[in-house]
């Protein structure tokens, strides 16, 4: 087997040193009746690299790659151009094949990168401190809810209808097993994101209000108003962002009253990958809350020679020290995705991120104007960044499936996201990033026209 360096003479010499007759003897603690004599039956045997590659390529070709379609899907996972440099860097063996930086003397590469990453995220979100990443946006959102409960000692969780339904679903699942009481209503097919209704429901039991910005239909809620209302009742505002590129054009949540900002970082550097691995971002505006934060943190310090260096720090919050009293059970984070994000963000910088956001918005406006002209199609949104909701005059799901047969991935039907949502079936969430061409927009418009006529 090409990955196993021991030769048979090696094995013999080592067994002799150990004083065992065979490798099987080393497994003597396994009860004989449960020890397998040979390979698990019914499974294939070893295959050459060439054979495996062929097999996997065949499987991959059964998927329609976004590059081969006119592509308008978003809803929490965004297709942006990732510079080739990003993939080159994350494939450096020293980054790719390192472990969590437990030994800082020989892990400054990862540690300095994490310190830079934390700073980038904190600035993007308008926050004081960000952690070294979480699994993804949906789990980061739940961790934020739990953190809010710890901080406020309240259990009422008010979730906006604009939050990504998967994020809602994760929270509802987890709350089944904990004490949180979740209040959530499905969104409605209106241009208004429903800030008033949300604010009206904040109570003295509310630990936190969770708002997505921009929301699942692309609408932009008024964070400052919600924050003020929440704070008045002693509740925290958690803002979830699924499209970090939007923050190149929109004011940062941390600057608009958010207490905890979480999000999905995938859009920058990571790529689609059928939904994972992604990159949970987590930041707070009040640095005093840092000891209640989940996840790994990297901090600056000095070494014995006085040189600047970085270490994982405040680990007393974490499970490997605190065990059942930990702030979270998270252990592995999303280090390599954080690297990808950080490299891409470094290439962009202030100027590039702003320009990228502007280009997304320009194309999205263009698309909205064009699609609004299609008979049977209406653009729902008053406000949006790079995704918006179309209201069709028929159900969107079958239409999306039909268009896919012709190489048009038209977007995400709200009926897929909200299978039990009344009145949402005709909604189609369309996302337009810089990877979309004007030809693609025309193709989508024509396809919709045809399908709806």
């Amino acid at each position: 087997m090409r990955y196993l360096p021991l030769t048979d003479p090696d094995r013999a010499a080592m067994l002799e040193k150990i004083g065992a007759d065979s490798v099987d003897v080393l497994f003597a603690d396994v009860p004989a009746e449960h020890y397998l004599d040979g390979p698990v039956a019914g499974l294939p045997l070893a295959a050459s690299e060439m054979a495996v590659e062929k097999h996997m390529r065949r499987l991959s070709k059964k998927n329609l790659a976004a590059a081969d379609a006119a592509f308008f899907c978003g809803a929490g996972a965004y297709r942006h151009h990732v510079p080739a440099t990003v993939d080159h860097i994350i494939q450096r063996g020293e980054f790719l094949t390192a472990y969590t930086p437990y030994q800082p003397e020989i892990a400054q590469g990862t540690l300095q990168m994490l310190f830079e990453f934390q700073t980038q995220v904190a600035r993007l979100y308008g926050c004081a401190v960000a952690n070294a990443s979480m699994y993804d946006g949906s789990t980061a959102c739940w961790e934020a809810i739990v953190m809010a409960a710890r901080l406020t000692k309240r259990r009422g969780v008010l979730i906006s209808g604009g939050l990504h339904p998967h994020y809602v679903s994760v929270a509802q699942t987890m709350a089944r097993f904990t004490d949180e009481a979740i209040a959530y209503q499905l969104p409605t097919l209106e241009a208004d994101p429903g800030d008033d209704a949300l604010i009206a429901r904040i109570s003295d039991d509310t630990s936190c209000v969770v708002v997505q910005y921009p929301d699942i239909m692309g609408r932009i809620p008024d964070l400052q108003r919600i924050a003020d209302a929440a704070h008045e009742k002693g509740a925290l505002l958690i803002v979830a962002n699924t499209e970090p590129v939007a923050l190149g054009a929109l004011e940062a949540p941390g600057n608009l009253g958010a207490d905890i900002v979480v999000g999905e970082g995938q859009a920058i550097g990571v790529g689609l990958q059928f939904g994972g691995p992604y990159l949970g971002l987590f930041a707070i505006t009040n640095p005093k809350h840092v000891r209640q934060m989940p996840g790994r943190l990297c901090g600056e310090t000095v070494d014995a020679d006085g040189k600047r260096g970085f270490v994982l720090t405040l680990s007393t919050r974490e499970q490997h020290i605190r065990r059942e009293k930990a702030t979270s059970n998270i252990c592995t984070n999303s280090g390599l995705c954080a690297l990808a994000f950080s490299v891409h963000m470094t290439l962009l910088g202030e100027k590039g991120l702003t320009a990228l956001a502007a280009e997304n918005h320009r194309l999205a406006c263009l698309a909205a104007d064009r699609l609004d002209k299609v008979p049977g199609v209406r653009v729902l949104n008053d406000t949006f960044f790079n995704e918006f909701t179309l209201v069709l005059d028929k159900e969107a799901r079958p239409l999306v499936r039909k268009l896919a047969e012709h190489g048009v991935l038209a977007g995400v039907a709200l009926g897929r996201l909200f299978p039990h949502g009344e009145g949402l079936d005709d909604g189609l969430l369309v996302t337009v990033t810089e990877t979309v061409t004007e030809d693609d927009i025309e193709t989508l418009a024509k396809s919709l026209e045809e399908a709806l006529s």
Partner: protein
Amino acid sequence: LEERLIFELGTRETCGVDLPEPKADAPNRLGKFARQQLIDLPGLSEPETVRHYTRLSRQNYAIDLGLFPLGSCTMKHNPRLNEKVARMPGFADVHPLQPVDTIKGALGVIDELSHWLIELTGMSAVAMSPKAGAHGELCGILCIRAALEARGDARKVVLVPESAHGTNPATAAFAGYEVEDIPADKDGRVDLEALKARLGPDVAGVMITNPNTCGLFERDMKAISDAVHAAGGLVYCDGANFNAIMGRVRPGDLGVDAMHINLHKTFSTPHGGGGPGSGPVVLSEALAPYAPLPFIVKDGETGEIHLVEEENVGDEFPGSFGRMTAFHGQMGMFTRALTYILSHGADGLRQASGDAVLNANYILRSLDDVLDAPFGEAGHCMHEALFSDNGFADGMSTLDVAKGLIDEGFHPMTMYFPLVVHGAMLVEPTETESKATLDQFVMAMRSLAERAKAGDETLKTAPHHAPRARLDEAQAARKPVLAWQGSVEG
């Protein structure tokens, strides 16, 4: 080996991508929410970016550079074929919410990997979506809780051996359970009698790591499972160490109800400096109905693969406890793990666990005359060898030996874990190390052991040949500096 921060290198005007200049008069649908404040991010040109990260990378140790014997972390070779496959456009450039007809290949990957995981563990089903090991633990415990609730049985306590990974108690607590310790016996294994004595109608289940964190196989696993089951509880097995036994014994045969598998340990997906991981959870027949969404179901007759989500979970799968994460889990890790598994095949996986255990025993027996091996008399170890600081000179510690290893060109072993051993040193070589490398490591360890016993003061200040000397962790925690505070050059 100093590399400045991007904030010190870049400016707000420098940019490593080419994008159209934004037009001032462009249409604007942002309402009143357009950004007013500076983000204050630095940009670097592409050459500067490549150089910054290339230089940074060279301050890291990695499995590509040498032995990385972190016990329980399973740092094995990461095949580059896995990386190549994960980057095929049909896998890398696919959206999780595309219509099902356009993602048959992705579902195929999940199906094939599921099949392997189920067969290798002798279980009934697998929940694929957990994002990492600890998330998998949570999934397993939630399955147990859902199953107990489904039968109206609100048990409150989860038993965890004191040698468990810290994630175990943290997970149980996060899922709303009280955690109680079970002691180890003198051989480092779960004390079966103590466990039996604690079982009762309030015990939801146990979380057991097998092979355990002392590197020993829990011989009584089946008896433990039987006892727990008899008391109405369920058995969670921490599968972090599955690497040691894959293809040689199936946890399902030992009565396990749920076990997560770290794809980034056992199946070689890269650790990436701390993730991403992936923690699918195999489930017994008793727990299978409670698996979280989404999952796939294969039609036994047509072979067609169906994706089950919120929409269609409906009446057919009423037990599913819900969603643990957005989308489908760590697809990018599934492709890598499946690639690894297909490369080995059933025979290769069995050979891998054999070589992993052989390597660990070789280290155990090459060092047990100079280092204290607390359970060395108890028989062979599994995939990792455990030593203690017993016999070191006053003032010399496991930490000193670990830092000394850095100067010898190796990554240190796991230190001070498991907690049941004083000054523990847990060495896991994995199956992808050659005998020549092990011999070099043994030589280095023997020399360090002698120095620690002799009280060699130079060890106290090791490492001397690393990018940094020992770092002041106390200062970092006392006055945390968690972000760069300056303003980027305009």
